[in-house]
């Protein structure tokens, strides 16, 4: 491809190529604090014109790569950075086999990891960003990578993808990528993890608490038992089935060793209070 960049986040390296300069420049800026990577990438991502003339006329970005979904719709060039981030997520979700992947945000304090597992809209990225702001190390806002050999959480500290009101909530903190307006998910902006989280992106943490947050409800917390947790986590994993026996062993160990709770919260302040109470 005409333009490309290779980035490594935690254990995974991506080579992203594009027909256009702008998404690659935005990616370079977003990942400029990450260590340079000169090895062989794990995944290749391509951002190409949906039709040949779409390189110039109403430029439209089709997502390609080692792993793709046929129904993925092209995005306008203005959202090229979003396309790249989506494509990188897709490679991990469909192709990563070295860890059990959970759709979850993770942060660490004192060597212990808090896993926030939930569907889109549960607020895991916002909560991870808020916790990160108060001193927790960011391990990741999209995937928790559970090591089948040790049970530890491996960092995957991509820039945190924040949407709409969450961008305003945190705008005075940290370094940000470009604001992407009018995307299918609304306005999106990426918050870059602090240097300490990036520097420690090869240092795993021991899972200590697993929460299932739910936004938009009165404050509540309840313990989640092993059976319910197991079912929720198999649903939240993109590669549980593909990992076979290793996935079963990894997930049952997690469920046996890590306390789990479901929390409902009406706003982030309440959520942070609940989290601190449960963390003790």
């Amino acid at each position, binding site marked *: 491809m005409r333009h490309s960049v290779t980035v490594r986040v935690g254990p995974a390296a991506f080579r992203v190529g594009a027909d256009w300069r702008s998404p690659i420049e935005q990616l370079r800026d977003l990942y400029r604090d990450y260590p340079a990577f000169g090895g062989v990438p794990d995944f290749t991502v391509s951002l190409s014109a949906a039709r040949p003339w779409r390189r110039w006329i109403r430029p439209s970005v089709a997502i390609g790569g080692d792993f793709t979904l046929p129904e993925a719709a092209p995005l306008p060039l203005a959202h090229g950075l979003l396309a790249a981030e989506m494509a990188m997520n897709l490679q991990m979700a469909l192709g990563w086999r070295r860890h059990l992947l959970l759709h979850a945000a993770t942060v660490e304090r004192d060597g212990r990891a808090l896993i926030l597992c939930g569907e889109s809209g549960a607020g895991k990225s916002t909560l991870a960003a808020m916790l990160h702001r108060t001193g927790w190390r960011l391990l990741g806002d999209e995937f928790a990578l559970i090591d089948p050999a040790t049970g530890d959480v491996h960092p995957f500290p991509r820039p945190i993808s924040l949407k709409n009101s969450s961008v305003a909530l945190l705008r005075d903190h940290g370094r940000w990528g470009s604001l992407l307006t009018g995307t299918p998910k609304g306005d999106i902006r990426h918050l870059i993890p602090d240097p300490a989280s990036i520097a420690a992106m090869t240092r795993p943490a021991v899972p200590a608490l697993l929460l299932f947050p739910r936004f938009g409800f009165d404050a509540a917390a309840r313990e989640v038992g092993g*059976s319910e*947790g197991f079912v929720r986590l198999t649903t939240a994993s993109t590669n549980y089935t593909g990992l076979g026996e290793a996935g079963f062993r990894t997930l049952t160990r997690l469920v*046996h060793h890590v306390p789990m709770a479901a929390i409902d919260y009406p706003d982030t302040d309440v959520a942070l209070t609940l989290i601190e109470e449960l963390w003790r």
Partner: protein
Amino acid sequence: MRFRAAPADALLQASLDPFTAVFHRPSGQTHLLVSPAPEMLAALADGPLSLSDLHDALAAAFQLEDAEGLADRMAELVAAGLVTAEPAA
């Protein structure tokens, strides 16, 4: 008719209270079982049993009305591939 559990080395089990998760190695599938299904598998671990013999083996732990009451549960285990049915010896 007798019922034979999958070989012990074909199954991985984890108690998750109240369910038992069972990973079936030959198929790669995970099953969530609730009592008395895990106990039925355990009772069959030493060799195949008829429904009547299985009922007797489990009667002490469960209030089972008769052997036929186990038939539906057994049919589910057979359908899941965790147990196979074979003609009585």
